[in-house]
């Protein structure tokens, strides 16, 4: 969102939507074209997908995708073709491999860890409370009063 602060510091001179006009024979290919060009990153302009970019190389790559689609290549073949030439950098969806395992699995593991921690801490607390045999529902009102006192003290 802050992107325009940055823009002000830029060297680029033109930012405008790239619009190409490819005619597709069938709807399915058109959808695949949109998906492929939206999920690949333009190597030149760095943080735009091919679809939005107006860089010359993005235009060439879109042209290539179009030609490959028309030649009935599969999505996998097209993606492999691009990665062979431009590296993993062009993929906005990083492949799942050893290097990216943390990226893909991290959030899920973290979620589990978070939930386990909650359960663990709550159980510990429950055990402690049992040991102290202090189930203290009546403290609640008292605590509430204490809170009020602290707040009032503040008012002076």
């Amino acid at each position: 969102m802050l992107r325009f602060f940055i823009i002000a510091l830029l060297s680029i001179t033109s930012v405008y939507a790239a619009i190409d006009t490819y005619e597709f024979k069938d709807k399915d290919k058109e959808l695949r074209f949109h998906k492929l060009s939206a999920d690949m990153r333009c190597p030149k302009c760095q943080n735009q997908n091919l679809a939005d970019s107006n860089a010359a190389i993005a235009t060439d790559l879109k042209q290539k995708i179009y030609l490959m689609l028309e030649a009935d290549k599969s999505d996998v073949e097209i993606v492999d073709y691009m990665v062979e030439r431009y590296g993993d950098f062009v993929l906005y969806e990083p492949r799942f491999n050893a290097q990216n395992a943390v990226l893909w699995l991290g959030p899920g593991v973290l979620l589990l860890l978070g939930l386990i921690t909650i359960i663990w801490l709550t159980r510990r607390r429950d055990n402690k409370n049992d040991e102290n045999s202090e189930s203290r529902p009546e403290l609640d009102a008292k605590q509430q009063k204490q809170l009020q006192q602290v707040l009032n003290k503040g008012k002076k």
Partner: protein
Amino acid sequence: MIPELGEFALILALGFSFILATIPLYGAATLNALWMDYAKPLAKAQFTFLLISFMCLAYAFANDDFSVQYVANHSNSQLPMQFKLSAIWGGHEGSLLLWAFILSGWTLAVSLFSRGLPLDMLARVLGVMGIIATGFISFLLWTSSPFLRYLPRFPADGADLNPLLQDFGLIVHPPMLYMGYVGFSVAFAFAIAALLSGRLDAAWARWSRPWTNIAWAFLGAGITLGSWWAYYELGWGGWWFWDPVENASLMPWLVGTALIHSLAVTEKRGVFKSWTLLLAIFAFSLSLLGTFLVRSGVLTSVHAFASDPERGFFILVLLLLTIGGSLTLYAFKAPNVKSESSFGWLSREMLLLINNVFLVVMAITVLLGTLYPLLIDALGSGKISVGPPYFNALFVPIMSLLALSMGISGAARWRQTSISGLKKQLLVPAIISLVVGLVFPFIYGDGFNFRVFLGITISTWIIATTAKEFKDKFRNTNSITAKLSQLTLSYYGMMLAHLGVAVVAIGITLVSTYSEERDMRMAPGDKIELADYQFEFKGAKKVKGANFTADEGTIVITLEGEPVVTLYPQKRHYTVKRSMMTEASIDPGLFRDLYLAMGEPLGNDGAWAIRVHYKPYVRWLWLGGLLMALGGLLTVFDKRYRSKSSSEVAHA
């Protein structure tokens, strides 16, 4: 003369913030009331001099003082006045000055509106804010002064503001966003003050709640405005790009959302204290981290910027001192779990804690995705990209879980809830939302679609549970109006914000599933059809604006023969910057936008490449965002906070 005055005022402000960062804190540590008393006047002095500094820069912009480098690089004599003034924050130096100015504004606000605070607490809070201000004003003065001159020879005219920024969006969006970013410094300062004083009772939660809510509301509004701005200004019809810079604003918002809820529990029930403290530190730390990511050049954003390792290094040191310092303090002084009350396995406390985990995991996912390319690169394993497909793949499931749990926590009671009680509360909303979710894709679309089913079900679920909860408030009353006025503004704020979540979810679901888009070569007279609408291109002509020339297309849109609207997209050429810009033309509507952008001229027959979008429910995104922000704002005006301050006025 005036720019030097601005620089001088900035130096004085640094002096005051340094004193603010030391004397009151020392006074609080040694219980010296006189020294603690200095905090308030120092906060005022710091604000005053930053205001003067800011005004000096504004003066330089308004009067086209191109001897000032920053003005020369970001303004032009032809620029309309409102853009000259908003150009103040159109670049690095000025936006940093705005940052510092807003920080001093929040500091002033705390000193004015926290009369209920004990003196030592106030001294500590203002002192901590003084520390942050000291860091940032130093950063300004040493690496990024906006007052440097081109002397003796300076350009006759300025290089002009980037055309993308010559827009209403730039006037309002950055200040909003910064109000949010910097606003989290208040919650942060309260948390640090609580840790320093060792008084970790629920009182600090009560004090920091309104500040946190209002900062969160500003941040949400800022993000919403930014999304809207990107949508109409960039010409791509996208509303969220998962760009590092966007992510930098989303992370503190997510953690801030967790913080708001955690603070509520801490205040009401006296539990989760350590967790809440940590969240308060996190929220502001992520704001700072965002600043680092944006300024240092370690990541490429949509538009790469001149990377400046020196600035990056300075901010990194600031980060280490503030975040590292506060986390160290936290590690040593955070309370052991000494809950003031207990709660059961199935209780509102527990559910809110789980929601907190979801929100924080979402924030960490954004962080991980944003920084992963950097990590891989730093390890020497090459360059990779992490973009929208990754974030969407992870956000959708977590968000769905969160929404599910949101509905349940609303129905759960504090301390302990029975399963049967929950079932009674939730059965009807569950059936309603499943039915609506199942039926909707058949009625609106052309068949079952899992994404739509999921999105609509969870949105309906949130709405239905919120409505049920609201309705139950009236179960035992005769007078509805009496009950309506009895409910607190906090409560209404919460309702509104939760409905906002549902509205955003509906918008995201529908716009990402049912949008249609065509890129067409259109010669004058050509027609295309999209989503039942007919678009006829009438041709393009040259038009002239204040500081640009443009090709303007005329496109007549009809629906089943009836005229709907005529749109005029432009392809602009800004003369000073010599840059091209797409100015999209949009017919907005609550249920759909028609969005047109012009590409390149093609051939000699007057044909152009035209992009036509049909975007259903796209407005709901921003509507929902504003509802959330409005909800956050409402809570601040709750009587609980107001009556306190009015009673103080009586005391004073």
